[in-house]
């Protein structure tokens, strides 16, 4: 039977993976089965670090062959090792799920004995969970680089989501910090999965689709020298060319001491700005070129949308009652939800500032960029606007740091993220 100590080791080793989301799948329950998946995702608890618990996130083993510099489980590290059997994982998942502690399983593993052996064991576990334990809840499975394609594809038929973590945003940094991995060992299986999804879509396959909730990946921020501009270009390609559902950013936490690694963490503000830019690329119609130059970092003082607006003052102010949706989405202080509210409400009546305030538009920010029925209450001078926005942003930053834990749920309905 699984004891608390083993669970502790295997959880501790898995917890730095930030993708907690359980959204994007509509798996339905079968007769005699247990569980289904909720499209919006559900958070079951929150830990004192402010992150959401949605899935039981656990490693099958933390005994790794590889020696990635930043990883507490790397081969050369002196840490207690443990593993858990497929049946133990199934039992734990089922019993946590029944008590409504979790929405499903996030299973990952260090590479033990060989990539194929590891992938085989992961695959066996998810097949068992589905077929023997009749579990129809959410499963996110981490892919093992260099594992046989056939194993990866077999697993993909049983799980909702898979992820190969890119971890480091360039080949050079991979070489330095994760010498056994190459860009290709991560990108090629991602491409195969994306092609398999495309095939299902083209052929209108309904049941038995591969990874219905798609793929995600994660990058560590600040362990290597890449700029935000480089990172976001990779991000944009992953969304637009490979159809990824989410890219997660995990600001580097020095859990491991190494001369090749920085001694201080990257801080949450940088991570937060990357998430904001990511959001703008996915839901607000921004291209990365508009947000950040290739070698540049995002502005720390104000969010990327404000920063963009300040650089493009010639486009403003726009009239709230006539501006197209694409433009409303670009106004600082008007979020996606606000923009859709405006579009709906203005069909019935011309809106004034009072109406906007009631619709939860952040007037003190938006007023510099909009007119309502021709009236303008903002500041004319760029300098004054910048000062006002930065002040506002500072207050905001303290509040919103580590947005990474925010459930996808809140915006999904409005932004159409599925």
């Amino acid at each position, binding site marked *: 039977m699984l004891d608390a100590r083993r669970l*502790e080791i295997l959880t501790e080793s898995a917890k730095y993976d930030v993708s907690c989301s359980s959204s994007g799948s509509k798996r339905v*329950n079968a007769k005699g089965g*247990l569980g289904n998946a909720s499209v919006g995702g559900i958070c079951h608890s929150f830990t004192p*670090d*402010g992150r959401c618990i949605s899935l039981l996130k656990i490693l099958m083993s933390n005994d790794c062959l590889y020696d990635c510099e930043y990883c507490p489980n790397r081969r050369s590290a002196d840490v207690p090792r443990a593993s858990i059997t497929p049946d133990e994982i199934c039992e734990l998942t089922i019993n946590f799920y029944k008590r409504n*502690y979790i929405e499903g399983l996030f299973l990952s593993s260090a590479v033990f004995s060989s990539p194929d052996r590891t992938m085989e064991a992961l695959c066996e576990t998810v097949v068992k969970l589905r077929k023997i334990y009749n579990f129809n809840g959410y499963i996110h499975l981490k892919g093992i680089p260099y594992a046989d394609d056939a194993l990866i594809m077999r697993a993909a038929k049983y799980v909702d989501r898979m992820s190969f973590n890119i971890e480091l945003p360039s080949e050079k940094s991979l070489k330095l910090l994760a010498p056994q991995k190459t860009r290709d060992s991560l990108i090629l299986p991602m491409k195969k999965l994306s092609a398999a999804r495309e095939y299902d879509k083209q052929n209108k396959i309904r049941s038995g689709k591969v990874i219905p909730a798609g793929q995600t990946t994660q990058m560590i921020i600040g362990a290597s020298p890449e700029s935000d501009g480089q990172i976001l270009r990779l991000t944009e390609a992953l969304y637009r060319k490979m159809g990824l559902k989410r890219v997660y950013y995990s600001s580097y936490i020095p859990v491991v001491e190494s001369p090749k690694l920085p001694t201080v963490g990257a801080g*949450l503000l940088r991570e937060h700005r990357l998430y904001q830019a990511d959001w703008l690329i996915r839901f607000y119609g921004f291209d990365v070129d508009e947000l950040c130059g290739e070698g540049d970092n995002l502005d720390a003082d104000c969010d990327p949308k404000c920063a963009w607006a300040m650089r493009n003052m010639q486009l403003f102010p726009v009239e709230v009652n006539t501006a197209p949706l694409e433009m409303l989405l670009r106004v600082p202080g008007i979020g996606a939800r606000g923009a859709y509210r405006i579009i709906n*409400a203005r069909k019935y009546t011309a809106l004034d500032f009072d109406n906007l305030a009631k619709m939860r538009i952040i007037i003190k920010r938006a007023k510099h960029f909009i007119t309502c029925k021709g009236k303008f209450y903002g500041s004319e001078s760029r300098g004054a606007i910048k000062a006002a926005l930065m002040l506002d942003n500072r207050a905001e930053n303290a509040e919103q740091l580590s947005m990474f834990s925010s459930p996808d749920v809140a915006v999904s309905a409005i932004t159409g993220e599925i």
Partner: protein
Amino acid sequence: MIYYVVDGSEDCFYTAVFDAYRQKDAIITSESNLQTELESRIVEVTADAEKAERVRKKLRQLDGGAENDIHLALRSCDPLRENTAFGYIRLIIEKGGPVRKMLAHPVVLEMSDITGKVTGELHKLKGFLRFMENAQGVLYAPFSPDNDITDLIAPHFAERFKNQRFVIHDVRRKIAALYDGEQIILTSVDSAEIYLSEYEKYFEDLWKQYYKSVNIASRPHEKQMKGYMPVRYWKFLPEKQR
């Protein structure tokens, strides 16, 4: 002012709408939220299925989604819920169609606010509800939601658990949804005595261990935790008990 006092059932509410519709200064309210001034008249409404159906039918003709909006609004803990829903119906009839998107109108905004709070809590509690297993394998979940959502939340779990029996118990309102593997029954339940399964403590302890291990202690953010998971829900979460 004329106060139409309703008993909490939907039929009674729709009956009140039928009776009050022609009065200019009518207010529909539940007994517990009744606050009258001098000079006011109080009418106790008894549900009348026929009147209720006539209002419902009219609504259905004008807006297919209105009944559901009202169904949700009446679950709200907002003291003005009945009157807001009444105002919403008036507006639909006055405009002759859906008004959902007229968010510049105060009644629509208020409706969207209170139904939003009900569905918001519903969604949150789909995550925060906790079951324990009794010796016969029945799952039992006590909770105390702000809004009256027991029958709204039960189908979510029936769908998940298929032939697994469960009870969801609103301990403050003293009502429970019982699911026997086939259908959900809503009933009043005062207090429940539970004999837990011998494995209950084992899994609960593993869950507490998990909760502890998965936290990144070097990055505390209590405020965010409490923002997403308000303290009033903690009472029924094993991971938040010592």
